[in-house]
């Protein structure tokens, strides 16, 4: 009895040590909308840098920034808007000289594919037929900030804000629409393209500032050299082809 217990404990302890360690693990904190494209880019980067493993941490850019600001050991930060990167720069988490824009995106309004009503203009969303509209929380989610800017400049924010269902990431907003829990949502064109059967794009929304994604290695990165290589890699044709395939535009 006792030796079986000892053996079981030893086995459990041994299995926890069996995690493979790589020459270097690169930690990339990236905006949620980059999930699919970045996952495809990882093996391409790893092929050019043998022994490296890319670990991703996806989330709303604002939330990722908070993690980094409070000491999370990330190497690279890719955000979905300039403002979050500006905040990072203001806190000396990234250097201005090292940041660069690597893709652009487009803001769209999507509705559930089963929806009978489709808005023809932004002002239609103020109507009562659209009772729930999923918008990213402007305080931490870039897509929510772009949306708020657009709606404020169109004088629609006060009409639409009461109907807003706050989403913690753009993918959560997309999920709400895919499940038909909301009548419409503001997401990126690249996110809408991921669920053609469940959501349909109703409007393409021009934004006052272009949707440009910046990326930068972090000043406190544990793997600084590798971080810079990853940032450079995103501008190569290999990475750009993958991004274009998902619908991202040139920076």
């Amino acid at each position: 009895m006792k030796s079986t217990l000892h053996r079981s404990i030893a086995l459990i302890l041994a299995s926890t040590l069996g995690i493979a360690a790589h020459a270097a693990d690169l930690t990339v904190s990236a905006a949620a909308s980059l999930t699919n494209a970045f996952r495809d880019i990882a093996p391409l980067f790893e092929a050019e840098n043998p022994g490296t493993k890319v670990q991703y941490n996806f989330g709303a850019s604002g939330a990722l920034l908070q993690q980094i600001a409070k000491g999370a050991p990330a190497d690279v930060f890719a955000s979905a808007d300039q403002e979050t990167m500006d905040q990072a720069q203001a806190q000396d988490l990234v250097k201005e000289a090292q940041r660069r824009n690597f893709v652009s995106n487009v803001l769209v309004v999507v509705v559930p594919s089963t929806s009978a009503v489709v808005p023809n203009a932004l002002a239609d969303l103020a109507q009562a037929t659209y009772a729930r509209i999923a918008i990213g929380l402007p305080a931490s989610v870039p897509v929510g900030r772009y949306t708020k800017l657009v709606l404020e400049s169109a004088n629609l924010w006060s009409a639409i804000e009461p109907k807003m269902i706050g989403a913690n990431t753009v993918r959560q907003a997309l999920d709400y629409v895919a499940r038909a829990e909301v009548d419409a949502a503001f997401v990126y064109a690249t996110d809408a393209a991921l669920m053609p059967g469940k959501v349909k794009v109703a409007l393409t929304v021009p934004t006052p500032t272009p949707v440009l994604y910046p990326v930068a290695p972090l000043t406190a990165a544990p793997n600084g050299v590798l971080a810079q290589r990853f940032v450079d890699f995103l501008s190569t044709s290999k990475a750009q082809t993958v991004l274009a395939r998902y619908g991202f535009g040139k920076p």
Partner: protein
Amino acid sequence: MGEAWIALALTLKVAGWATAINLVLGIGIGYAMAHWRFPGRDLLDAVLTLPMVMPPTVLGYYLLVVIGSQGPLGAWLLHHFGIRLIFTWHAAVIAATVVAFPLVFKAARAAFEVVEPQLEDAARTLGISEWAVFMRVSLPLAWRGILAGLLLSFARALGEFGATLMVAGSIVGKTQTLSIAVYEAVQAGQDDTANFLVAVTSIACIAVLLGAGRLLPGRVAARA
């Protein structure tokens, strides 16, 4: 800061409703399980205890699938009554009720099982109805154990986060409970708000525990 008081009021309302529902369900089902033997009773007990063991996000996902507009229950409600549960405080109550149910159920069942059957039989020989046996003999004898379960259930409902976030979302005044408010304040880098919310939550929890300490008669105090 005003949002903190709104979140506190909403959290207490949701936890209160969830505990009230669990009071009825937990006692009823606990009593039934303690008194009746039937094939599959242990399996049913395990299934009813599942919400306590399952990760809240898994539970939240199940609830989303069932009560969402495309789910079996949700679609039926939408079609017949025009009711959409997701993103309402009712969904928050459902989530809190489900996660806290096993705490009352388990405590009630255990409490009813230690009530001496002779006492219940004696009451029956005196000619009172089954309902009266339950209300005047079983329940009063099992009450302390049930109360402990209710307290745990209230505390659990107060702090529910994962399942609530999935089905209720976070709408200030309607579904943004204290735990969700803290989460979003931290994500947005609003540390002042987060600190204030955490302080409010801590004080509320301590108040609940102190209040419960008064309600539960202590054995030590009784002997002293």
